[in-house]
């Protein structure tokens, strides 16, 4: 611990208010799910992609904004955040990979496949981010690293 005792301030992890990281991640995930349902509901026809692309873009923007919000959290238990996030990323990467396999196996091609793939990427990052934040927010940490 590097804190100077005279400047140290105790923060209660159970009581402190944090930005809406979980809400942003859930909203982003909901948007890609709606986009996926929209595309899947039109099979075998190819529907206008603009609504799906719009939803995906909005989900991506929310995800990036969420990542920025998370990166500014301080103090925060980054060790637990990355440990949980890393394993969750592996697990949801496998799940997203299986879903991608199904789309490719079913001959989804072109722009639809790109939208599906990017949606899976957003999904596979959203969930680990949410899980990692949900755990790390309650973990005790020392002072933030010196900049």
């Amino acid at each position, binding site marked *: 611990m590097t804190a100077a005792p005279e400047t140290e301030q105790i923060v209660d992890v*159970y009581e402190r208010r944090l930005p809406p990281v979980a809400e942003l991640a859930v909203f982003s995930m909901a948007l890609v799910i709606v986009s996926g349902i929209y595309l899947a509901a039109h*099979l075998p026809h190819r529907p206008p992609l603009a609504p799906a692309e719009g939803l995906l873009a909005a989900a991506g923007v929310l995800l990036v904004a969420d990542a920025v919000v998370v990166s500014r959290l301080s103090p925060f238990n980054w060790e637990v955040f990355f440990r949980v996030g890393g394993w969750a990323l592996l697990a949801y990467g496998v799940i997203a990979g299986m879903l991608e396999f199904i789309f490719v196996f079913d001959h989804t091609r072109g722009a639809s496949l790109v939208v599906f793939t990017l949606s899976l990427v957003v999904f596979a990052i959203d969930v680990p981010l*949410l899980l990692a934040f*949900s*755990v790390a927010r*309650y973990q005790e940490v020392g002072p933030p690293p010196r900049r």
Partner: protein
Amino acid sequence: MADVALTTSPSPPTAEAGAPPRPAFEIVPLRGLPIVAVVLACLVAAIATNRLWALDFFHVVGGGLWTGIDLFVGFIVGPILGRLSIPARMEFSTRFMPKMLLLMPTLVIITLAAGWQLARHEGFILSTHTHHGWVVASMVIVGVMAVIALGLLEPANLAVLFELKKPRPNGELIGKLMRRFIYTAGITGALQVATLVIMTRLATV
């Protein structure tokens, strides 16, 4: 900038002194991972071979267990758990939650993946099919369940497990997160009933 030490409450509500010690546990039961890997490999084989029986098997077994467990946890285990003492809840959670962490995502992925492929096989997924509307309705319900399960239920599950790993777990936080876990399991269970109506309808057309 003042250095800030983040800590738990100076005197968090913890398991009372004299309470039975929490058993040692793994957050992710490693012994279960090979079983999950085998199940997923079989699922991939079922999809790759596109065999109707195998797809039906995975979808029906996975969906039945997913639905049954959601209903059982939400409406049977939940109310019982709510009446237990905090130490008893903690002991139950240390044995129950890690298994759920591995079991439920596996059931969800096999149900959805096999179900999607089955719907393609049977033609339900095509917008020209007379019962396509039922399939779209089931997609919407699954979408809502996915948001609830991944956005609320699973984070609560994981946070409880990490809290239980602490030397002095916060009973109040565990109680709050467990309530969220149980309520969301109940809501997804209720949505599962709607899925059952749709699936039995599709299976008998």
